[in-house]
């Protein structure tokens, strides 16, 4: 890292610049595919099946094998021994075998059937085209209608029951104004800017893998399961991740194939998915059917909420998205009935995409709620305000904190909801929308180690990742504040599986989990230093000033030289001192309903001739406990709001019903929001530390921004035009059809 000095304050909460910013703006942060070993790196290219189901009956690699530079063509016939995909069952889905090239069965369209390894990318890519193969196609199972989904999943993501409810739904729905609507949401890909990439090197003893992955400990488990190697002989590194959004929670085909290549050749092998390959070789969010019945009294009290979800579930991979979670938590009601059904299909992996459950559910559910407001002719902000749940609607548990009311009030005020002005300019009409979001908060077990050397330089080791969330920066702030040291005295070492295991990044649990582990490590180090200074181990404030350490405050303050303290630490004399910290979920996570919350407001302009929707502005009011860094937190929340717009208006991964493949596998055909698609973005943060969530008082924000933001856009489109599109995304053709 080049010389770095930070003039800003790096206390917790400060809107401090990212500490990894200098590297990233210079193109010097090394992402997975940019690492080098002493030996030259070979390049692998994936050959994928063109159909979604079947058996590979013949494969001839001889022509490919004969090409210049080709080192190996690997198929099921010559790949190393692997544990069958999905075994062992008790390892959890990210720790199980993700075997590749292990048999002749085709599991989904794009499924790798060969890996060509060559000296250069150009050679490997060309040779792959010369492989001759035959697939005997099998019947293809796809979800073609909601009623085909009749399997009750064992549980849904987040550990919830597939079916849950309270009260007598039939009588609740019979009461008041009733709305029955059916919504569909599209297949969506995370489309992180960095395609999944890995470089593996097996030197005959240890397997080292540079990969782009959000959680390292389970990545090691996965490789251990897949290749039957002891975990201590595997090292995974991922210090910089070019976006994840759930698609890199686990290792994917690139990592397994790179390992296969390296295990066979004992040379470094790199496999980078091409952008087109990402669509099939990495996970996506499944499409959904959401059938809803809602009822409310004329004075705006919700009586009944019924939400039935039908979704595809990928064969061999038991992930069911919690589409109904928004319906279960957003509002109080006399009765709630939430149901999830799936159909097992021949599909590429279906798994988490940013805010699983919440993003998909809030998009449809908060649109339906808007329809209900219209049906009883009530202001949608007032309606939501009146129906906020005082306790968890299903469990009756108290919220640890819940500021949804303030989010709505202060958001509406900042947005100017009461004074909104309707305009028509030529063929364009504007409209306004609102929605809310509740996003569950969790802590995942996490560990960290902190070391201080005799010069007062701190280093934190944890296998945590920074996927753009700002982990390097907030962990720096936690240490900086605890010991009163400037940021340039702190090094945060992330993304190395040799370091203590952390939560990793995902589920909005990363900052609170890894941050609390680091805070606990700081406290342990402070206690140890107090002990070495001969002070009672306990609540001493320990502050550093270069190589001097100050203990306590006021009259009883003492100053010690750091080197002398370290000398006391042991024989022989030590030149550094370390301490560990960890965190686990505690009883407050069982006892209280823990959620962060959001109110979203949007103004759009719709061309009533072309049906084109343009976003004028979005405003979000968020409450997520204590904010660790107002700059990076704001960026994440705004990024989530952009996702909401993109999901509501553009994104649609389309499947060919004939062969189950995706047809729009590039960024021209799979459109997500570009710069000009986004209007003004603003936000308010209603900050109230939640110490039941964690010692830092913070709650998750990474998925809060998207939870509800798409529905505010959809509701604004209706407000502008009177057109309710229930089949997302809201593309111009669908708006036109309703005009």
């Amino acid at each position, binding site marked *: 890292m*080049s010389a770095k000095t930070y003039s800003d304050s790096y206390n917790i909460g400060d809107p401090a*610049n*990212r500490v990894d*910013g*200098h590297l*990233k*703006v*210079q*193109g*010097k*942060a090394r*992402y997975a*595919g*940019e690492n*080098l070993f002493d030996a030259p790196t070979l*390049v692998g290219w994936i050959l994928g099946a063109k159909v979604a189901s079947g058996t590979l009956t013949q494969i001839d690699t001889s022509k490919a094998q004969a090409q210049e530079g080709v080192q190996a063509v690997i198929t099921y016939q010559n790949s190393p021994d692997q544990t069958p995909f999905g075994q062992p069952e008790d390892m959890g889905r990210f720790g199980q075998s993700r075997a590749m090239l292990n048999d002749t069965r085709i599991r989904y369209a794009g499924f790798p059937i060969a890996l060509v390894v060559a000296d*250069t*990318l*150009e*050679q490997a890519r*060309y040779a792959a085209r010369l492989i001759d193969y035959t697939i005997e196609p099998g019947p293809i199972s796809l979800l073609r209608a909601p009623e085909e989904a009749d399997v009750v999943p064992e549980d849904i993501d987040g550990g919830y029951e597939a079916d849950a409810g309270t009260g007598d739904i039939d009588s609740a729905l019979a009461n008041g104004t009733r709305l029955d609507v059916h919504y569909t949401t599209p297949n969506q890909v995370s*489309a*992180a*800017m*960095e*395609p999944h990439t890995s470089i593996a090197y097996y030197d005959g003893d240890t397997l080292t893998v540079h990969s782009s992955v959000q959680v390292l400990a389970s990545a090691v488990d996965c490789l251990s399961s897949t290749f039957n190697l002891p975990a201590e002989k595997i090292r995974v590194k991922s210090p*910089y*991740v070019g*976006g*994840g959004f759930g698609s890199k929670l686990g290792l994917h085909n690139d990592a397994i194939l790179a390992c296969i290549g390296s295990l066979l050749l004992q040379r470094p092998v790199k496999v*980078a998915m*091409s*952008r087109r390959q990402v669509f099939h070789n990495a996970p996506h969010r499944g499409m959904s059917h959401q059938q809803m019945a809602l009822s409310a009294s004329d004075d705006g009290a919700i009586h009944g909420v019924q939400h039935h979800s039908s979704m595809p579930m990928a064969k061999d991979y038991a992930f069911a998205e919690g589409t109904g979670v928004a319906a279960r938590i957003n509002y109080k009601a006399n009765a709630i009935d939430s149901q999830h059904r799936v159909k097992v299909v021949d599909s590429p992996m279906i798994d988490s995409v940013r805010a699983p459950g919440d993003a998909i559910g809030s998009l449809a559910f908060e649109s339906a709620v808007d329809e209900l407001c219209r049906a009883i002719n009530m202001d949608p902000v007032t309606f939501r305000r009146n129906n906020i749940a005082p306790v968890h609607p299903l469990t009756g548990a108290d919220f640890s904190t819940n500021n949804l009311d303030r989010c709505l009030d202060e958001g509406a005020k900042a947005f100017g909801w009461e004074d909104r002005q309707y305009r028509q*300019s*030529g063929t364009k009409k504007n409209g306004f929308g609102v929605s809310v979001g509740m996003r569950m908060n969790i802590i995942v077990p996490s560990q960290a180690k902190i070391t201080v050397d005799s010069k007062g330089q701190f280093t934190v080791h944890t296998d945590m990742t920074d*996927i*753009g969330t*700002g982990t390097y920066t907030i962990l720096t702030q936690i240490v900086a504040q605890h010991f009163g040291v400037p940021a340039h005295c702190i090094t945060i070492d992330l993304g190395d599986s040799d370091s203590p295991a952390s939560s990793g990044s995902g589920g909005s649990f990363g900052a609170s989990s890894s941050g609390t582990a680091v805070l606990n490590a700081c406290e342990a180090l402070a206690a140890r230093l107090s002990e070495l200074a001969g002070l009672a181990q306990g609540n001493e404030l320990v502050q550093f000033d270069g190589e001097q350490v100050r203990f306590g405050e006021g009259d009883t303050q003492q100053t010690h030289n750091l080197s002398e303290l370290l000398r006391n630490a042991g024989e022989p004399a030590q030149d550094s001192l370390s301490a560990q910290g960890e965190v686990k979920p505690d009883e407050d996570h069982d006892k209280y309903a823990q959620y962060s919350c959001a109110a979203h407001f949007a103004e759009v302009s719709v061309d009533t001739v072309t049906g084109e929707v343009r976003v004028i502005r979005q405003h979000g009011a968020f409450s997520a406990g204590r904010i660790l860094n107002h700059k*990076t937190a*704001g*960026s*994440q929340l*705004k*990024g*989530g709001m*952009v*996702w909401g717009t*993109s999901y509501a208006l553009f994104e649609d991964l389309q499947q060919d019903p004939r062969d189950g493949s995706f047809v729009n596998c*590039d*960024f*021209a055909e799979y459109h*997500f*929001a*570009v*710069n*000009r*698609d*986004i209007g*003004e*973005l603003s936000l308010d943060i209603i900050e109230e530390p939640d110490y039941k969530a964690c010692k830092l008082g913070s709650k998750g924000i990474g998925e809060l921004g998207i939870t509800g933001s798409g529905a505010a856009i959809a509701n604004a489109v209706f407000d502008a035009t009177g057109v309710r599109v229930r089949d997302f995304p809201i593309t111009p053709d669908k708006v036109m059809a309703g005009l």
Partner: protein
Amino acid sequence: MSSITINGQTHGLPQDPRTTLLDFMHQHLQLFGAKKGCDHGQCGACTVLVDGERMNACLLLTFQLAGKSIVTIEGLASDDELHPLQQAFIDNDAFQCGFCTSGQICSGVALKSELEKNRPSTLWFDPDYTKTEDVKERLSGNLCRCGAYPHIIDAVSICTDEQEA
């Protein structure tokens, strides 16, 4: 002429005519600043300056660039100092994961000279044309999945505002 200049250094052209500028930099020079986000010219993560013009390095075959001078993100400033736009990206938190950032910054640098030369954008023919929309349009070839767009516009305004003044 059978060489190209990248960030002031002269390099011989690769043997393999299929090698794109992006793959040449990655495979032969270990110069990883320009990123491969799509390899189709659709994401802009590989944006570099070719004789001062912004181009997608994934769409250029290296052998076509004989005699050209390329500047990548690594060549915008010296090691110890940052280009003002690089600093503006840090100050405005105009990135999260950082993977599109090299391309965004190279695009922003080129944008400044395009505005100075009064190059039209497609938007100039739109009756609702505004300068902000125009800048957004010009930067829409650089995708950012983290959604840092508003902050990117804030950062790039140091280029566009100067131009106005």
